């Protein structure tokens, strides 16, 4: 082999090595995923939680929310779209304890997902088997407990499936709501459980 050939091969080798280096240290190799489920799994894995059993995947614009349970915890982990085709961990990873002595357990969190969306999620799990529907009452956040009328209450309703988890969501930038009451209703529409936050 002459020196020219060796030089050519060395240069090609260096070029390939550099490309491989860029590829492996890139977040597109180990952080951004083409599949939202993979982003969700990585999010839980690096949080030292789960893997949770996903009971439902909810699509809200550029976000996916994974309702799931793991042992005695429930969670609604969110992953977000990145650059149109990739998915990356968002927020809400990690579970909240399921309080078996209560009819239902819930949690909420809000996060800004783009400049027009402040996504509020109110989610939970129902342990009382009698409950078939969950309702959440919302009012404008600016209204005090004694300053709103019945007709200013917006009620969101969620019909439970076999997995017993529920999720309410709204965009705080469009509707600056706060929750004032949650109810669990039985088959006949009777209130079985009610909790209020004045």
């Amino acid at each position, binding site marked *: 082999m002459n020196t020219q050939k060796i030089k050519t091969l060395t240069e090609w080798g260096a070029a390939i090595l550099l490309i491989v280096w*860029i590829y492996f240290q890139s977040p597109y190799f180990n952080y951004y995923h083409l599949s939202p489920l993979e982003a969700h799994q990585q999010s839980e894995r*690096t949080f*030292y939680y789960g893997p949770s059993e996903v009971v439902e995947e909810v699509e809200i614009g550029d976000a996916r929310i994974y309702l799931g349970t793991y042992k005695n915890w429930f969670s609604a982990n969110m992953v977000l779209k990145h650059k149109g085709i990739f998915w990356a961990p968002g927020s809400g990873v990690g579970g909240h304890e399921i309080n078996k002595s209560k009819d239902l357990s819930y949690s909420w969190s809000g996060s800004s997902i783009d400049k027009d969306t402040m996504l509020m999620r109110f989610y939970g799990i129902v342990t009382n088997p009698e409950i078939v529907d969950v309702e959440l009452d919302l009012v404008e956040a600016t209204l005090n407990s004694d300053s709103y009328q019945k007709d200013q209450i917006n009620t969101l309703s969620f019909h439970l499936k076999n997995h017993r988890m529920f999720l309410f969501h709204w965009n705080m930038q469009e509707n600056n709501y706060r929750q004032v009451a949650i109810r669990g209703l039985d088959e006949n529409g009777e209130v079985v459980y009610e909790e209020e936050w004045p």
Partner: protein
Amino acid sequence: MGKIIRRTLIIVCLFILIPDIIYMVTEAFSRDLPREIREKMNSGETFIIDVDEEVKLDQDIIEFEQILMLEDETLLLFEVHNNEPGWSFPATALSIKDDKGNNYTYRSGSSSGKKWGSIHFSNYDALPNDVQNLVIDFSWFDRSFRIEVPVDQEDR
């Protein structure tokens, strides 16, 4: 033609890697510990307990280095070697227990990110001077571990 392609590739790649190359060089010359912690270690008033224990937590490795016993506080030094990028280590889930039944919870802390993970410095309340045994306790959802740390008082 081949010459132009491969040389362009090399130059473009090197250009993309400039931040990484700078990071690697500065990393090689930087010290891992912040100055105030190094000063405390060298002051002679700090009692340093070498922990030197490694724990596998899921896919990551947690390396406990030292516990620094100071007059008014305790410092726990450890490294987290991550297998993949993701959430930062939940340092609040680490508590220290002494042989007198006291439990010291995480008070504050700092960490610095590395290519391979992170270095953590967590603050706890001061420990009793005559402590013989310590336990580092980790409790996070269903993950937990405990490390027993004998304190050799003769080293003081």
